[in-house]
């Protein structure tokens, strides 16, 4: 990754994100979004994030793409803590703690 590609990413991601934020408040005043579009937008985060990290979880670069029990158990712990306690911070710290325990003992 070059310096230029980093700066281009920062600038265009910044402009694009701003325009998304400005879109309805700015350009369209108080027009309503169609219901089907709202229904799809609601699932954007949960559609993008799991897909982004699934390959990283199953085939981590740090182990040369080998399945790693410590990382899998850590991922599962974060999922369970987050799902059961609805706590984002708890899932992050719990998951990392399990990862370190796993890397140490496994």
């Amino acid at each position, binding site marked *: *990754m070059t*310096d*230029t*590609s*980093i*700066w*281009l*990413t920062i600038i*265009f*991601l*910044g402009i*694009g*994100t701003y325009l*998304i*934020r*400005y*879109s*309805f*408040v*700015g350009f*369209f*005043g*108080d027009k309503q*979004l169609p219901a089907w579009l*709202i229904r*799809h*937008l*609601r*699932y*954007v*985060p*949960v*559609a*993008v*994030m*799991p*897909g*982004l990290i699934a*390959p*990283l979880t199953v085939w*981590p*670069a*740090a182990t040369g793409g080998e399945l790693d029990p410590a*990382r899998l158990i850590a*991922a599962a712990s*974060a*999922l*369970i803590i*987050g*799902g059961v306690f609805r*706590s*984002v*911070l708890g*899932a*992050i710290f719990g*998951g*990392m703690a399990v*990862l*370190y325990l796993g*890397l140490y003992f496994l």
Partner: protein
Amino acid sequence: MGRDMSRTRTAYWKGIWAGMPFLVMAVPFGVLFGVVATDAGFDILQSFAISVIVVAGASQFSAVQVLSDGAPWYIAVATGLAVNMRMAMYSASLAPHLGKAATWHRIVLSYFMIDQTYGVSILEFDRKPEASVSEKLAYFFGTATLIFPVWYASTLLGVIAGSAIPPEYALDFAVPIMFIALVAPSLRSLPHLVAAVVSVIVSLALVWMPYNLWLMVAAVAAMIAGAEVERQMGARK
């Protein structure tokens, strides 16, 4: 006039107060971003600039991840924008409350539209729809007042700490853990769960595709799956 001013001021302070709990979350998130960005090869100015210009943690993590996978910059931008499309929904739902504000107010407030300021403000606006536009604006800016400087500062802190953290701390795995943590609380709802499962299966199946195209395909498939399950659940009621 005097009374309007004092109402606006009250709304602003209420906004500051309501936004406070989210600082607890912003600090570790920002520190982690600084650490991960530094680890991926961003310098201090670049890490700070992306937090100030983009101000959307999940998309920043995604863009950094995609760049360090070796994909071209426009794929990183497309991935980050995909993550941020949810903000179109925020913008649309704030529009009935703030769409009548002066143009330059709307230009400024758009920069401050993040998950937390939106989430806190829309609760208040729906509770008190009759409040004036200037009260609503003041409340919104109140929710942004602390979290923005805290976000910038914690990114910097992460950059400084990050250069001191050796590889055996396995920070490569901080990003997966964090995204799992962000998504997990929503998985108790069936449409969200279906969307997440579809996203994982499709991305694992298509990961051979170049330029992170697999992620775009997985995201679109998952979004449609979630929306469709929601529609059918609604129809059954």
